[in-house]
């Protein structure tokens, strides 16, 4: 038996400003959804759980991650209850539930808290820069060192425990019986979904271009990470590495620029609602790639020594990205969604 909890929907509304209470349970959203199946149907069920405040059922569900937000349900909804955006809201909420630190909750719910956090990180970077007397050599070296440390620590301290929590809530707590072999067998699905998001192509809406853009951003972002961190782009002598860095960073900031434009234009269902976390994500991804590109241009033009502020700007953005958006922000959807596909596969294989 589940108890109705009206506080839940009030709380949920802090994660996005739509009124899903408008829903009158016609089920059109589920009927039009190309990803919803008889065994695993959504989004109406999730709308219903949200209205009734059945948070335990939502926390143990993978369904919010199975939706790729094509927006067709929201377009079809006769009551403008925006089921598509609700699924997005639930993903935000789930991110905060998986996060053991509780910091995501604070950042998602409060724009003020987010701005303060971003400012604190910036101040921290400036203080470090001050102690290094804004020495170019020392800062570039430290920046590279920071990148490696932050990747390792964010993954080990925040993301890995959070994925284990997600597994705990969705597999263990739901008493799904999964044998060990299935974990190994399904691992390929995890990798494929993580790097391709191919399931989103099953959405009926015309979205191949959007998928391609998203795909290129993921690949571009990962390559940029690899090139800057492991191939040390800013210090490289190799022409191939140098030009690869230019290409992938340009690719990332050009496409993210298009994403930002879409969110401003609001001409597609998926862009109608933008939560601060969405803005932070696309803008910082753009700024990161763009500032990396500019830094490398300054290095190649031998201007960096006299313009260390360019690097300072880049490293501030990078620090904010690595310390806030990656562990506690929208970046995590990259992991959770692919793990959700993986866990779903495991549950289905019972």
């Amino acid at each position: 038996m589940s108890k109705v909890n009206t506080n839940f929907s009030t709380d949920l509304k802090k994660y996005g400003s739509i009124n899903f209470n408008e829903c009158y349970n016609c089920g059109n959203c589920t009927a039009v959804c190309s990803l919803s199946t008889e065994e695993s149907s959504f989004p109406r069920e999730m709308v219903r759980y949200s209205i009734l405040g059945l948070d335990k059922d939502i926390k143990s569900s993978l369904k919010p991650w199975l939706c790729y937000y094509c927006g067709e349900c929201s377009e079809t909804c006769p009551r403008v209850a925006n089921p598509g955006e609700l699924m997005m809201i639930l993903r935000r909420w789930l991110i905060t539930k998986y996060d053991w630190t509780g910091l995501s909750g604070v950042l998602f719910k409060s724009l003020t808290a987010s701005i303060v956090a971003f400012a604190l990180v910036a101040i921290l970077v400036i203080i470090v820069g001050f102690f290094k007397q804004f020495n170019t050599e020392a800062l570039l070296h430290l920046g590279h060192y920071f990148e490696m440390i932050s990747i390792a620590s964010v993954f080990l301290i925040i993301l890995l425990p959070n994925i284990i929590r997600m597994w705990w809530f969705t597999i263990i707590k739901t008493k799904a019986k999964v044998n060990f072999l299935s974990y190994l067998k399904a691992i390929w699905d995890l990798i494929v979904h993580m790097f391709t998001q191919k399931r989103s192509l099953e959405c009926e809406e015309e979205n191949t271009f959007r998928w391609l853009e998203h795909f290129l951003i993921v690949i571009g972002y990962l390559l940029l990470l690899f090139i800057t961190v492991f191939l040390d782009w800013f210090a490289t002598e190799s022409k191939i590495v140098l030009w690869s860095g230019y290409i992938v960073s340009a690719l990332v900031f050009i496409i993210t620029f298009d994403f930002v434009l879409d969110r401003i234009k609001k001409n597609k269902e998926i862009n109608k609602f933008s939560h601060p976390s969405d803005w932070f994500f696309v803008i910082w991804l753009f700024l990161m790639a763009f500032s990396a590109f500019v830094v490398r241009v300054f290095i190649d033009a031998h201007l960096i020594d006299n313009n260390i502020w360019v690097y300072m700007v880049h490293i501030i953005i990078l620090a904010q990205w690595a310390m806030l958006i990656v562990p506690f922000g929208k970046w995590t959807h990259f992991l959770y969604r692919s793990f959700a596909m993986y866990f779903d596969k495991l549950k289905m294989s019972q």
Partner: protein
Amino acid sequence: MKKKIGVYICHCGNNISDYVDVEKVKDIIAAEDGVAIAKTTMFACADSAQNEIIQDIQDNNLDGLVIASCSPKLHLFTFRNVAERAGLNPYNYVQANIREQTSWAHSDNPKGATEKAIQLVKAALAKVKHSEALALQKIPAVNTVLVIGAGVAGMRSAIELADMGSKVHLIERTHFVGGRTSQWSKLFTTSETGEEIVSRLYYSVLEHDNITLYMGTEVVSNSGSVGNFEVELKKTPRYIDPDCKIEDDTEFENKLQKAIDICPVEVIDEFNFGLTKRKAIYKNFKSEFPECPAIDAANCTKCGDCEKVCDGIKLDQKEEYTTIKVGAIQLCTGFDPYEPKDGEFGYNEIDNVITLQQFKRLIELCPDKLIHKDKEIRNIAYIYCVGSRQVDGDNKYCSRYCCTSAIFTAIHVKDKYKNINNFHLNRGIRTYGKQEILYHQSSSQGDIYLQSFADSPPVVGKNGNTTSIIINDILTADKEIEVEADLVVLVTGMIPRKDNSIGNILKVPYGRDNFFNEIHPKLKPVETVIDGVFISGACQAPLNITETSKSTLSAASKANSLLKSGEIELEPTIAQVKSDICNWCDKCTLACPYDAISKIEHKGKQVAAIIEAKCKGCGMCLPVCPENAIDLIGFSDVEIETMIEALIE
């Protein structure tokens, strides 16, 4: 005996002629005795065919007419008109039904259908030969209407009737006008209050010279019939001097207030559905009409304390009986709310379970905070369809107004008080028409709707100090959902008035649901089988106030159009007693469903006599008469017997 009869066999397009050989029917009938003309026609009801028949009647001086076509239900009056226009008495026309009874019924057997058609036409021919020319009876009628019940329906109707020129006696059993509507505050969908509507109607009623309003008055008996009812009224005293008026006399008003304060008798206040108590001298709310308080005769002990403080109180007033003569009666007696049984969803067992009607009064009694039994209410659960759409009980009907009323109330409550959560446990929301907007508004504001099937209703239980309701919510895939509520509101529907004695006095029939029944829901929606007795508002079926107004205006116009000429035309086809043969055995009076037979003196003996205005010509009295002393005009023995002979020939 008619000797020059015209017979027309209709093709009805192909409806009849596809299966019945109409030419053969015509040829055989043409050879019958007394048939002057026999013809077939494509559509007897068509204008051209009607004109041809009229021409034939006039040219050949026909004295009888038979048309073999569809059911008389469809075209009896059409063809009677044809006869009349040709100068033939309409009762010398007989219709043979060879469509519904022949071609449609026997489409598998055209030969047999043709045989049957021939027999039916022969029977009609036999009847028309013995038919008599009859004239409508005309009786004088008084253009006065008795409207029973001064709620919204009664007052609205009285005003309309008075506007149209009828005199109106408007009687109200209680001492205040407004009925149920005065008990409700804000009303959907305009948010006007019940008091506002009632006071507007009341002032209009007072302004009209044509309306006489009787308070504390009910019907005790009725004699007479349409056009000339004689109704006996009983008036219960108000025990207040009728010359005393409250308006502009604050001194008198203060004295009355003192009388109320001093009254030692406290009884349950039905106006607030038992939520509060009142004195034996009472007034339900400040602007209630008529403005003087009333003393409730049933509960007053006549201690005399009030008389001592207020000289306008007259405890020696007596019941009065008067008889009035009216042409028509309109019933606007309204409804009672369904009273849940003890234990039905915890009613009368769990202290925070109340009905929607009580809840609406509770809201009026709580200006700032919603308090019930000393507890502030935040979470309200509404359980729908209580006493309506019952699976096991008798009330199979939907009460229509309750979904909208509950939702409107939920919106109102959320608006009026802080931190309210509404839970609607329903069986499918029916906010039809314009009311749908309220449903939308309510869910937009965060009201939660849960739905169950009729066979697994929600269960209300007490869990320590909290009341919780468990429902298998079909909107959540039948998941068992628990709702904790500070107050459970049972959305109770309408039932017929518990005291419906007026129906028995006037012999108005009840429908399946025990509300008063109309003749036909679409064609005669406010008429009853008792001529001159009309029904409107919630005494007929569950209706909201808008629908009540519509039905009451419809009944008003029917009553006025019946009486306005001062004369009523009645069908001549009624029973007739052969007084010489009758020996008064009383069997016919027992058989008559309309009270249309009286006992009179005839040549020194007691005999039965038909009250023409009451007789409907149903024929129930005929077969019970041991002397065969009753005949039905238009269906005389000779007519029926010759028809039978023709059929079995």
